[in-house]
């Protein structure tokens, strides 16, 4: 049938890097959350760390309420950094390879002690200004891509589904405008 190559080429256009690295990575992200949930009943999100960590240095009432969770949130964040570093040492450095993994062409690679590390080309002003807005927005909006997107959607929470649709739609609009203005990278 003539339709088959058209379907395949459409899929190839939508997913130029395949889907396996995304699907496998996503399953692992979910597994990480599930492991913590199984042992502790905690639904772990990433953005509260920003406020809970500020409670060590600031006495604002808004941060004080996170004192009870601030220690494990630091452990969770250090785990995320370490897990990504394990990926860098093994797969990014080519020590391990998998048919499920497609290497990328984005950014720049650099070497440190035999480990292949990676640097973004996105400009620092975009990262900083975007970061400020992410810091404000995730805390006012009650969650980020992990809190709302993974834990909230996994809970079939209406609040989270509305939250995800909101930030997804606005982010797509913003990124399209930024691209149309010719800002790259």
């Amino acid at each position: 049938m003539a339709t088959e190559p058209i379907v395949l080429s459409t899929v190839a256009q939508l997913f130029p890097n395949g889907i396996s690295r995304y699907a496998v990575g996503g399953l692992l992200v979910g597994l990480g959350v599930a492991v913590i949930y199984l042992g502790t009943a905690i639904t772990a999100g990433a953005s509260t760390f920003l406020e809970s960590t500020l409670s060590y240095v600031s006495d604002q009432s808004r941060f004080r309420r996170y004192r009870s969770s601030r220690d494990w949130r630091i452990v969770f964040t250090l785990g995320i950094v370490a897990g990504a570093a394990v990926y860098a040492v093994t797969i990014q450095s080519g020590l391990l390879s998998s048919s499920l993994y497609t290497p990328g062409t984005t950014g720049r690679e650099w070497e440190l002690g035999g480990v292949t590390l990676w640097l973004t080309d996105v400009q620092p002003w975009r990262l900083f200004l975007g970061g400020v807005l992410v810091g404000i927005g995730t805390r006012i909006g009650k969650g980020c891509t992990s809190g709302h997107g993974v834990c909230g959607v996994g809970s079939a929470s209406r609040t989270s589904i509305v939250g995800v649709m909101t930030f997804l739609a606005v982010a797509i609009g913003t990124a399209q405008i930024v691209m149309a203005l010719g800002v790259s990278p």
Partner: protein
Amino acid sequence: MPLIFAGGLIFGFGLGFSHMARPEVVLNFLQFTDFGLLFVMFGAAIVTGVAFAVMPRVCDRAPLTGDTYGRRLKPFDRNVLIGGAIFGVGWGLSGICPGAAYASLGVGNVTILWALAGMFVGAYLQGVVRSREVPSSRSTAADD
């Protein structure tokens, strides 16, 4: 705590493996040139969805904390839309969200410190402003 570290380890490895720790790849999704991100977010949500649905039926309390298993449900109000929109502008501009930013540091992307610094500045600013607001109700739930 070791379990939380292990969970973070798997979580961070997944973000590295899926290239979500690379702002360029997230921006490629938002600019419609690579839709892979959908598989990451929904793949993860399916796994947590199964865990959140099954565990409360298997046993009452978590072995390590003794807490009851529940879902992540938050009350809906205007802030979900306002905050979500502000987060959306920031995410669309930078291609980075909190969890991915921590992971980005792990893959060697020291430039991401700009975004992490920005996130702390933003979280601090909203915290100072909202701490001044007179708490009209004391029933505010903790946010993730």
